[in-house]
């Protein structure tokens, strides 16, 4: 073909900074919800910005944040992972067993958690991508498998996490709580991921699987990869839980699968796949965690608290979904 003439279209180019300021409507909803719950938290909890409060709040957010990013990757790829919680449990008990309370083995423990997550993710990916089972029901089944495996590794709660991990998790680095930095790490990791060809392909597969196949995207490999990446993030979630609890528990994370899905939706990610960002999921996870804190600080009677939180979450999800649909037009 003849050499193309230089065009004006090329002037507005990827990488221009304005791009980062143009949010979609659903992003604004997520940001708005985040601001509202944070404001409520600050108002009700005057100590919110003390170091202890920041450290402790983010320390509890972090596991769900990583699980939500994991879920986000899978959901954007058109899948769903109901086994996230038991992958987290499995990765945590494996890492705990590997570390055996020795501070010198923290690095191997970290590796073990991630590798466990990756293997579990690969199993999910194989079943969904290669064997082609419907994701919901397939990961419901693997959830049993991983949960059982976690019980085999650690038959009952116990064991000690190396103290370096637990104290490190609660310390400050240049005045910033480590737990805050860890949540930032989740955001950075996702941001890096979003710049890869893999993540582009995951979005394509989530958008339209057969169209992606026809467009030279290696669909099966990409689907597998999305579960593997999710597994790796679940491994990180497991480490955050270990650092937070200081001990092992084969039942940990039982509510994480559904919570991570709620977080993903609050973060403006469409369950139909192809749309949204893991960073929204981080916000979603924080919103979800803060709602329960707000209710407790408001002193809602305990018998009504669950109803209140249920109604608030349904309303927030409805808002988020309705707004993200407006985006599409």
């Amino acid at each position, binding site marked *: 073909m003849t050499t193309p*003439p230089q*065009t004006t279209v090329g002037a507005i180019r990827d990488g221009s900074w304005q791009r980062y300021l143009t949010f979609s409507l659903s992003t604004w909803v997520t940001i708005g919800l985040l601001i509202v719950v944070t404001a409520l938290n600050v108002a009700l909890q005057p100590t919110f910005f003390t170091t202890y409060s920041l450290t402790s709040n983010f320390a509890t957010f972090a596991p769900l944040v990583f699980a939500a990013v994991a879920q986000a990757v899978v959901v954007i790829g058109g899948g769903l992972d109901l086994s996230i919680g038991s992958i987290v449990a499995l990765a945590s008990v494996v890492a705990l067993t590997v570390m055996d309370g020795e501070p010198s083995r923290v690095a191997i423990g970290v590796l073990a958690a991630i590798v466990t997550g990756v293997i579990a993710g690969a199993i999910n990916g194989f079943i969904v991508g290669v064997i082609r089972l419907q994701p919901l029901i397939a990961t419901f089944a693997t959830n049993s498998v991983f949960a059982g495996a976690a019980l085999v590794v650690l038959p009952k709660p116990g064991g000690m996490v190396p103290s370096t991990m637990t104290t490190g998790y609660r310390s400050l680095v240049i005045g910033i709580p480590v737990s805050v930095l860890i949540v930032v790490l989740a955001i950075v990791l996702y941001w890096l991921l979003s710049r890869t060809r893999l993540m582009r392909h995951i979005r394509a597969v989530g958008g339209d699987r057969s169209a992606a196949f026809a*467009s030279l995207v290696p669909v099966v490999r990409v689907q597998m990869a999305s579960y593997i990446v999710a597994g790796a993030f679940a491994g990180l979630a497991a480490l955050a839980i270990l650092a937070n609890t200081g001990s092992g528990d084969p039942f940990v994370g039982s509510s994480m699968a559904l919570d991570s899905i709620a977080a993903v939706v609050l973060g403006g990610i469409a369950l139909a796949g192809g749309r949204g960002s893991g960073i929204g999921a981080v916000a979603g996870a924080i919103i979800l965690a803060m709602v329960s804190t707000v209710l407790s600080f408001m002193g809602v009677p305990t018998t009504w608290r669950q109803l209140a939180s249920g109604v608030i979450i349904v309303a927030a999800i409805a808002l988020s979904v309705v707004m993200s649909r407006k985006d599409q037009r």
Partner: protein
Amino acid sequence: MASLDITGVDKRYGGVQALKGASLSVAEGEVHGLLGPNGSGKSTLNKVMAGAVRPDAATIRLDGQDLRIHGPQDAHHHRIESVYQQLSLIPHLTVAENLVLGTEAARAGWLTPKAQLVEVDAMLERLSPVLGGGIGPRTRVGSLNPGTKQLLEFAKVVLRRPRFLVLDEATASLHRDQVALLFAMVRELTAEGVGVVFVSHRMEEVLDLCDRATIIRNGLNVATVDVKDTDEQELVRLMVGDLARAAGRGERPAPSRDGQPVLSVRGLQAEGLADVSLDVHPGEIVGLGGLQGQGQSELLTGIFGASPAQAERIEVAGDPVEFRNPRSAIAAGLALVPGDRASEGLYSVRSIQENISTVTLGRRARAGLVIDARAEKEAATSQVDALRIKIGALADAVSTLSGGNAQKVVVAKWLLSEPRIVLLDDPTKGVDVGAKAEIYAIIRDLTAQGVGVILNSSDDVELAELADRVLVLYEGRIVQELEGTDVTHDNLVAAALRISDDDTKES
């Protein structure tokens, strides 16, 4: 001279033998037409070359070398690229992301888009005269109209620098200007030695563009001809055999427009539509013309209550009505054959019988609740026979049918409802000449019974052949009305083009 030869292709889908030893041979630098009626196996053959379908048997040779193609990436590796009949753009990705999908430049997995974006820009610049305004590399693809999408699909494949290029009905949703640009680009490619396979049901396009043509029927090769030595009649004869029926302007008395209109619309407003009024008289076919995407489909769905619209007044045979949803429109005697039969017209996983039944199910049911199996079967059979729909069994999923036959199923379900007004949105898109003639005959039959028809068509020839009157739309308004003997192919083109000249867009 290099060539792509594919021979002895067999492919069976369940009970359907889609290809039986079909073959195709494309030389470099030629445009090779692949013709055949609906369901003859053209797309299947193309997908075998593209790696998207696994044949039961096939031999593929490139430059005399045996080739195995196990997937689209293998085909790409050999620089065989395809535009599928079914669009394969990802709605949530941007134009640029779609154009480079699968071939993204990356270093160690990290995207390095700079250089590729220059190529994308150049391609968009090239297409810009016919692409429609406001479309840049960062536009999301989902909201674009079908014609634009089809052009982007073509652009995507051309950007991959093919040696052999397969275009499966790549012009089906395109307007004249767009087709012209596409043809120009194809000719540039062939001049550089690219071999092109071209599939289309529009004979004039085939005659215009192709050097040779291979005709297949029922999965078998019928002939390969030099296009310059042949003519349209001959091609049609090869395609549909003795069944050939010239789709000429039928003998139909001009309908009277003195009496009560069967449908009268005043001041219809909707997204993409501004203040449209029209009347349809019994037995009349009112065409909708103009460039595609000027509000024709919105007009039909708006009248039908299928998309949000407000009208000052809608009357059916003089009675004022208000359609809040299709159900109320159907109750008043309307029918809509939608533009996209796969996504709007059919329950692809359900049986042929259920698809035909759906509109009128309640009428045959006992007490409106309990299905009478015999009545259902009889009703469906009557339509299958009347429309000569080629099926295996009524219980087969409708997805097993070829395009033309599937379209007839959509028409059949509406005929059962005995409508007074039929809205047709491009009813013969992707339909072969034989089936097209049959659908024309059905439409004429309807008008003979006093049914009023509104026909939107992307094919000017079709409008010229069928319509008593044509309303030309531009940006959601009726800007011109052609009537009676003025409804000619040339006038329609002129009407559309004059409008596009008014457009401020620089050429």
